[in-house]
């Protein structure tokens, strides 16, 4: 169990990374003087992982959409007291989330850290699913799905993904649908748990007020050895072209919302670099200091809900421009025209340098938050990176990188998703 100290001279910070004998990767970031600590125990398992196999399986298995999220709900229930009850005795703020490509259980606390960590590590390693408790959860998750179904922001995003992708499972709602979760039972939950909650597929990231030796002692005491069974998630073939150019639905809202998405394919190993390049590119072209934002804010075409950036994760990558407008179709045309002009002229040195500083500054500000540091460590670990890669790559990014990224953007290979008011 070697301790690796990962340092950054640029930000004068360091953290410790350990491959624990149980199979778990552990990242510890002590932050002197902070009262609180933030711990994330995450599995590289999200809503996109619906077809998979391990060394024990003869063939790929496909499970219903929403099962990673269902599992997240169910893990809080143990044979004894529910995990929430245990956390309530320490006062910690505990929660969990499921995203497209990961699931994480977390707590933040400013007291009784050791007890909290023990609770976290134990409950995640101790599933307890019964027919009754799986059934009971269905009603709660149905309400969660309905809550998101009433959210125009959520709907405009997922409709955009379903227009962009033919087969990529990122297009399916993280919580699944009322129909898909109806098929989930305790056997399927155990199957997914045993596959993805292998400690070799998991990471523990903690930042804040912690004692490293004590933390590792708790890991030694509570982590159960996991044999690495060689997990394989199936890669679906995704055509280059988008699936549907435009998608529009009506909902109860005040002003049309839109999400414009540009389909991009990048190598998984270069995802971070591309994330930074396209983030800088979109900030230069569509950010608040650019011509696009200021011209169209002035004309009233867009308002301050407008934003642009990158939507990416394991197996998916897209450039995104989103906001509110009474004429979203006109915004789409202007966005495409602006990108065409930028492609012809290239990006100027001055605007590049300004935005590079902006992105660099944003990344630096993260180091003052225990939550942001722990979350970024988890992200880095699952991407087989170190935490400081993001700020280092940003500092080294050149204008050439940005112009290259721009040249690869296929402007017409894009979609617009709109949610319009019911009475429009």
């Amino acid at each position, binding site marked *: 169990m070697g301790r690796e100290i990962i340092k950054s001279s640029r930000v004068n910070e360091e953290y410790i990374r350990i491959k624990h004998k149980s199979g778990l990767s552990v990242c510890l970031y002590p932050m002197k003087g902070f009262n609180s600590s933030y711990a994330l125990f995450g599995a590289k398992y999200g809503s996109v992982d619906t077809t998979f196999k391990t060394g024990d399986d003869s063939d790929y298995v496909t499970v219903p959409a929403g099962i990673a999220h269902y599992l997240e709900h169910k893990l809080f229930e143990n044979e004894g007291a529910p995990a*929430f*009850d245990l956390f309530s005795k320490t006062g910690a*703020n505990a929660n969990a989330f499921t995203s497209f490509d990961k699931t994480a259980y977390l707590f933040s606390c400013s007291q009784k850290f050791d007890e909290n960590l023990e609770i976290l590590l134990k409950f995640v390693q101790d599933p307890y699913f019964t027919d009754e408790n799986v059934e009971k959860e269905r009603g709660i998750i149905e309400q969660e799905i309905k809550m998101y179904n009433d959210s125009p*922001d959520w709907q405009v995003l997922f409709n955009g993904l379903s227009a962009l992708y033919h087969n990529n499972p990122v297009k399916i709602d993280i919580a699944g649908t009322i129909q898909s979760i109806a098929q989930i039972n305790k056997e399927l939950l155990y199957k997914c748990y045993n596959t993805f909650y292998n400690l070799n597929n998991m990471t523990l990231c903690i930042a804040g007020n912690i004692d490293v030796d004590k933390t590792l002692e708790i890991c030694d005491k509570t982590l159960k050895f996991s044999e690495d069974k060689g997990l394989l998630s199936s890669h679906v073939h995704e055509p280059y072209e988008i699936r549907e150019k435009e998608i529009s639905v009506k909902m109860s809202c005040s002003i049309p919302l839109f999400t414009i998405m540009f389909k991009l394919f990048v190598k998984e190993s270069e995802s971070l670099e591309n994330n930074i390049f396209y983030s800088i590119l979109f900030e230069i072209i569509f950010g608040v*200091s650019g011509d696009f934002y200021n011209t169209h804010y002035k004309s009233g075409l867009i308002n301050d809900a407008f934003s642009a950036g990158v939507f990416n994760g394991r197996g998916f990558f897209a450039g995104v421009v989103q906001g509110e407008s009474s004429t979203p179709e006109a915004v789409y045309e202007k966005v495409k025209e602006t990108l065409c002009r930028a492609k012809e002229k290239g990006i100027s040195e001055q605007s590049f340098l300004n935005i590079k500083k902006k992105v*660099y500054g944003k990344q630096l500000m993260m180091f003052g938050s225990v939550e942001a540091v722990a979350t970024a460590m988890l992200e880095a670990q699952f991407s087989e990176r170190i935490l400081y890669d993001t700020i280092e790559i940003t500092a080294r990014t050149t204008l050439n990188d940005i112009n290259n990224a721009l040249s690869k953007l296929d402007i017409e290979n894009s979609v617009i998703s709109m949610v319009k008011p019911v009475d429009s």
Partner: protein
Amino acid sequence: MNNIINRKQIADGIHFSFISDSRYKVNRISVNFFSQLSPDAGVNALIPRLLSSSNRSYPERKALNEKKASLYSAKVDFNIGNIGDTQQLELFAVSIDNKYALSDDEDVTGEVVALLSECIFHPVLKDGLFRAEQLEEEKKALIETIEAEFNDKRDYARKRMYETFYEGEPAALNCLGTVEAVKSATAKAVTDAYYGLIESAPIEIFAIGCNDFKEISKRLKKVFGALKRSDIKQVQSLPGVIKDIPTEKIECFPVEQNKMVLGYKTKSSNYCACLVMAMILGGTPSSKLFTVVREKMSLCYYCWAAYGRDKCSMVIDCGVDGENTQKAKEAISAQLTAIAQGEFSEEDIMNAKMSIANTYKSYNDSPASIAGWYLAGIYRNDIKTPENALCDFEKVTKEEIMKQAELMTADTVYIIERHV
């Protein structure tokens, strides 16, 4: 670490406070204007938008935004909110400290503070008024922000509930104002309101970060200390008036899930006991609303209670299927009754207190959260460190908690009901 605020009066009704703490990587300077919520809230809400979008050195939004980007993503921005009956307009600047700049000779913090001061004191005016074109842009943006509140039905339901819950009181008003008030705001009205704030609003300035703030405080004291101030308009919140007959209001929209918000009021001034009671009822995942209404009855995904100190009120909200709405309402009410009858343990009390302690102790870890903590304390004339404030909770007893539950009076129910 326990940060104690250093607060000094620098002009009539203007106070400057700072915390210098090497843990932070950033410096956050904020200037907060307080005024009583009124039908003019929308006029006031235009002011921070106008001030943060340009100034005399950078008369166009684009130029100002370019300048901010060049200062390492410095923010010069605003927040508009309310504390009870009072509207709070915050203009703030956040930037990395000079020591983290890519080259050694950059005075990022100094430049950002200068930018913030320029925005507040040197807006671009034409014939002594905010420019008509800029005002129209900001009016449109603010109106769309107000209208967009309708998109998030949970948040919208809470705001609609407040209108009935606090009817006739300032807290019933939206801190962003109404669409109508914003539409009719003239350049003269907004400019007069701006000078009104500068001249007579209580102003609290906070500087929190890793800087020592010696130079910054000199600069801020100089500009704010030179202001001509008179007739400072004091602000306060009064407890919500309890209705003689509880009200229920239902609105129908094409949604999948009903959103229900229940408002309770109390005449009690025992804040600590009220907060502990609300935590036991619905403040944590081990609370009664979570364990019974969500986990046991599977009625809701979210069902939380929150106690508001300034208006002595408690708000509970949940999302629930149409056919279960009445059942959920009865179940929520039954949990409050259960607390009034003492159906909770010493352990529940301990857990609620622990949860409050956890939250309070975390305030010190971010410049924005500790500023928010002290600002609320100043507003209530009850300035304490989070750690000292925690001592007041230790003595809360089971009997006091039962009493607070008993004193909570059902006042308003607001429901967004599904219709297809």
